[in-house]
C-alpha cells in the first residue's frame, strides 16, 4: 500500500497495546470509554465519600475547608463530565451501529479521536489536584468568585479541561448524528429505530447546540483571567449574571444530555423483560423530542434568586413545569409496558424499575422548585442536593447499571452473576435512599450546600450521620458490582447470541459480535426485528461466498491530533509556546489523516 511522503503507514503489527491505541472499531472504542469512565466514576465516588466523612459529625476535622471546596467541585465535574456522560458514550459507541444494523460508525477515525481527546481532557482536569489545587468554586464557576482575583490556577484547569472535553463531545455528537441518519439497515425507518437510538439522536443534537454556548462562556472567562478583559467582572463594567445565563443555557440541556440515554436504556430493558413491545412507542419518542426542545426554555430556573423580574420568573416557572408533562408521558408508558406482561425479575429489570421510581421522586421534587417562591426557600440548601442525586444517581446511574447488566452478555459473551447482581442492586438502592432522602429534611430545616462543617445543636446531626452511612452502603453496592465483574470474567462464555430473548438487532449477531458486526446486513421488517424473525421462522442468511467485508484499517492519526489538541490546551496553563507547538502537530495530523489510504 503506497503511503504519501512524510506520513505514517497504518499499523500492521499485532501488538495488543498498539492495536488498542490505533483502533477505530466502535466496539473497542466503546469499551475504552466504558473502562475509562468507570475509573473516573470511582475517583468521583472517593471524593464523595471524603465529603460525607467530613460531614458525618458536627465540627468534622477530616479535611479542611480549602480541600473540601476542591472536593465538591471536582466530585460534580468528575461525575458529570468524566463518568455519566462518557458511560452514556460507551453505550452508544458500542450499541448504535449494532442496533441500527451497520458495520461501524460513519467516521470511525473521528470516533477514536473523540475518545483520545476525552481521555486527555479528563486527565488535564483531574491533574489540577497536583498543580496548585483543583477548581474550588462549584462546577458552575459563578463569577466573580472564579475570577483571577479570588480563585487560583484550578480555574484555568477548569476552563481548559472543559474546552477539551467539549471538542471531544462535539466530534462524537456529529459522528453519531450522521451515523443514525445515514447508516441504518434497509427497512430500519426512523420510526422503527429502537428508543435508545432515538434518545441518543436527541442527545447528539443537544450536544451540538449546547456546547458552543459553554465554549463561548469559557473563552470569555479565559480572556478575563488571562488577557485583562472583564466580561464578567463588575469592577471593569462586566456582568456576572451574563456568565450565569450562558452557563445555564448550556447547563440545562446538559441535564437532559445526562438523563435521556438512561431513559433510552430503560425503554429497551422494560419491554424485553416484560415480553411485550414497548407501550406507546411514538408517544415516548415524541416526548423525548419535546424534552429536547423544552430543555432550551428553562435555564433561568437556576437563577430565580438573581432578581430576574416577575414576568421572566413566571415564564421560566411555567416552562419548567411544562417539562413535567412529556416526562410524565414517559413514566406512564413505562408502567403500561409492564402492565399485563410476563415479567422476569433480572438485575437489569430491577435497576430499570428502580429507575422509574427514583426518577419520579427526583422529578417531583424538581417540579416543586419550579415555583419561584418555593425555589427561593430551597436554593442552595440540601433539598437541591437531594433532588439532583435522585435524578442523577437514581435516574442516570441506575439506567447505566441496568444497561450494564442487560448488555454485558452481548459485549463479553458472559452473563453477569444474578446473585451478586441482586446484592449489588439492593445495596445501591438502599444506599441511595438512606443517603439522599434525609437530605430533603436537612434542606427544609435550612442546612446550606457547600459548607465544610456545621455546629452541633442545629438539628442536623442525626440526618447527616444517616446520610453518611447511606453513602458508604451505596459504595459497598458498587464494590459488589466490581466483584461480580471479576467473578463473571473467569467463567467460560456461555451466554449465547440472545440470552434474554430480546427484540432489537444487536441480538441478531453473535456475542461478542465479530469485528464486522454482521455477516450479512440484516433487513428490518418491524420495530422488534428479532421477534419478527422468531415469529416468522426466519434465520439470518449466510453470507455469499467470496464477499469481501470492507473495514477501516487502524490509524495512528486520531491520537496524534488528540495530542496536538492537548498541547493547544496546555499552553494557557504553562507557556503559550506550547500552544504554538500544538498547531503544527494538529495540522500534520489532519494532513496525514486525509492522505491515509482507507481501502
Amino acid at each position, binding site marked *: 500500500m503506497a503511503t*504519501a511522503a512524510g506520513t505514517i503507514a497504518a499499523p500492521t503489527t499485532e501488538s495488543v497495546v498498539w492495536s488498542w491505541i490505533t483502533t477505530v472499531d466502535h466496539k473497542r472504542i466503546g469499551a475504552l470509554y466504558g473502562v475509562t469512565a468507570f475509573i473516573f466514576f470511582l475517583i468521583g465516588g472517593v471524593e464523595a465519600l471524603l465529603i460525607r466523612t467530613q460531614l458525618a459529625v458536627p465540627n468534622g476535622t477530616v479535611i479542611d475547608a480549602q480541600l473540601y471546596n476542591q472536593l465538591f467541585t471536582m466530585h460534580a465535574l468528575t461525575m458529570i463530565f468524566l463518568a455519566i456522560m462518557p458511560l452514556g458514550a460507551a453505550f452508544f459507541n458500542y450499541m448504535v451501529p449494532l442496533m441500527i444494523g451497520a458495520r461501524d460508525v460513519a467516521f470511525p477515525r473521528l470516533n477514536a479521536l473523540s475518545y483520545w481527546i476525552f481521555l486527555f481532557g479528563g486527565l488535564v482536569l483531574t491533574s489540577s489536584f497536583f498543580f496548585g489545587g483543583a477548581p474550588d468554586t462549584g462546577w458552575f464557576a459563578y463569577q466573580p468568585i472564579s475570577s483571577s482575583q479570588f480563585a487560583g490556577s484550578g480555574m484555568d484547569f477548569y476552563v481548559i479541561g472543559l474546552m477539551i472535553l467539549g471538542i471531544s463531545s*462535539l466530534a462524537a455528537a*456529529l459522528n453519531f*448524528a*450522521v451515523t443514525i441518519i445515514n447508516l441504518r439497515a434497509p427497512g430500519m425507518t426512523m420510526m422503527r429505530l429502537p428508543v435508545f437510538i432515538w434518545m441518543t439522536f436527541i442527545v447528539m443534537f443537544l450536544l*451540538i*447546540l*449546547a*456546547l*458552543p*454556548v459553554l*465554549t*463561548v*462562556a469559557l*473563552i*470569555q472567562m479565559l*480572556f478575563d483571567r488571562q*488577557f*485583562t*478583559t*472583564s*466580561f464578567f467582572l463588575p469592577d*471593569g*463594567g*462586566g*456582568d456576572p449574571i*451574563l456568565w450565569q445565563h*450562558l452557563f445555564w*443555557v448550556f447547563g440545562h440541556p446538559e441535564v437532559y444530555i445526562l438523563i435521556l440515554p438512561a431513559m433510552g436504556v430503560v425503554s429497551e430493558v422494560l419491554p424485553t423483560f416484560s415480553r411485550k413491545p414497548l407501550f406507546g412507542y411514538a408517544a415516548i419518542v415524541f416526548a423525548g423530542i419535546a424534552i429536547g426542545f423544552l430543555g432550551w426554555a428553562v435555564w433561568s430556573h437556576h437563577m430565580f434568586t438573581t432578581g430576574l423580574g416577575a414576568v421572566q420568573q413566571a415564564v421560566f416557572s411555567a416552562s419548567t413545569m411544562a417539562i413535567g408533562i412529556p416526562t410524565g408521558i414517559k413514566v406512564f408508558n413505562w408502567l403500561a409496558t409492564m402492565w399485563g406482561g410476563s415479567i422476569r425479575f433480572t438485575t437489569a429489570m430491577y435497576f430499570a424499575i428502580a429507575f422509574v421510581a427514583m426518577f419520579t421522586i427526583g422529578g417531583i421534587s424538581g417540579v416543586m422548585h419550579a415555583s419561584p417562591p418555593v425555589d427561593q426557600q430551597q436554593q442552595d440548601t440540601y433539598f437541591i442536593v437531594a433532588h439532583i442525586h435522585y435524578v442523577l444517581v437514581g435516574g442516570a446511574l441506575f439506567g447505566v447499571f441496568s444497561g450494564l447488566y442487560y448488555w454485558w452478555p452481548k459485549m463479553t459473551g458472559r452473563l453477569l452473576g444474578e446473585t451478586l447482581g441482586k446484592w449489588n442492586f439492593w445495596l445501591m438502592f438502599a444506599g441511595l435512599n438512606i443517603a439522599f432522602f434525609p437530605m430533603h429534611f436537612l434542606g427544609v430545616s435550612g442546612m446550606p450546600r457547600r459548607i465544610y462543617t456545621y455546629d452541633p445543636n442545629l438539628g442536623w446531626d442525626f440526618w447527616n450521620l444517616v446520610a453518611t452511612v447511606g453513602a458508604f452502603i451505596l459504595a459497598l453496592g458498587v464494590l459488589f458490582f466490581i466483584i461480580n465483574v471479576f467473578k463473571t470474567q473467569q467463567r467460560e462464555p456461555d451466554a449465547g447470541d440472545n440470552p434474554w430473548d430480546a427484540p432489537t438487532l444487536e441480538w441478531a449477531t453473535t456475542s461478542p459480535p465479530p469485528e464486522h458486526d454482521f455477516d450479512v446486513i440484516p433487513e428490518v421488517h418491524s420495530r422488534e426485528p428479532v421477534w419478527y424473525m422468531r415469529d416468522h421462522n426466519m434465520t439470518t442468511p449466510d453470507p455469499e461466498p467470496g464477499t469481501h467485508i470492507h473495514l477501516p484499517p487502524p490509524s495512528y492519526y486520531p491520537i496524534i491530533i488528540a495530542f496536538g489538541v492537548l498541547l493547544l490546551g496546555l499552553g494557557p496553563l504553562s507557556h503559550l509556546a506550547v500552544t504554538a507547538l500544538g498547531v503544527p502537530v494538529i*495540522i500534520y495530523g*489532519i*494532513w496525514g489523516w*486525509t*492522505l491515509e489510504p482507507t481501502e
Partner: protein
Amino acid sequence: MWIFLGSECLFFGSLIATYLIFKGEIDLPPFPSETFIETAYLEEAVASGEITEVASHLCHESSEAGISVCEGIFDIPLTSQSTFVLLMSSVAMVLAVYGAQHNRPMMMKFWLLATMLLGVIFLGYQVYEFRTFGQEGLTLETSQFGASFFVLTGFHGTHVAVGVLILGSLLLASFRRRGLGSEPGFQVETAGLYWHFVDIVWIVIFTVLYLIPA
C-alpha cells in the same frame, strides 16, 4: 458539515449576544459610532485615568455648551471594502465548486487560489483595523465594547484563517497525481459550505456591529 454549521451558529450567536448586551453600556470613548457626551463627565474620566489621553482626542466641544461630540471608531467605508472582498471570495468559491463538480481541474485550481487570496486580503484589512483601533485607544481592557468587539471579530478572523488553510490544503492536494481522488466535487463543496458560512456570519457582524447605529 451542515450539522457542524448549526453548532457554529450558536457559537457566534453567543458572541454577538454578548456584544449586544454590553453595547448599551458604553459611556466613555472610544465609541463605535458618533456619540454626544457631557464634557464635564469626559474631563473627569480623563483626570481619573479611566480613559487614555489618546481616546479623549476622539472628542471635541460641540456647538452646544457643555456637550462634547466624539467620533465613532468604526471606519465604515474601509470595512465596506473588506466586506466586498469577502463577498467576492464567496463568488470565487462558487466558481471553484463548479469547476470541481464539472471535471475542470484548472478552473477549480484557479478559483481556489483566488478565494484564498481574497481571504488573505480580508485578513489584512482586519489586521490593519485592529492596529488602528489599538492606536486610537481601544484594547481588550479599555471597555466592554473593546473586549466583546475584539473577541467576536477575532474569532471570526480565526475562522477565515482556518478556511484559508483548508482551501490551501485542497489546492496543494489537487496537484498530486491522483488529484483530489474520486470525489473532488464533494470535497470542494464541503469546504465551500464552510467558507460561505463564515462569509454569512461576517454579513451579520457587519450589519449588527457597524451599520446599526448605537
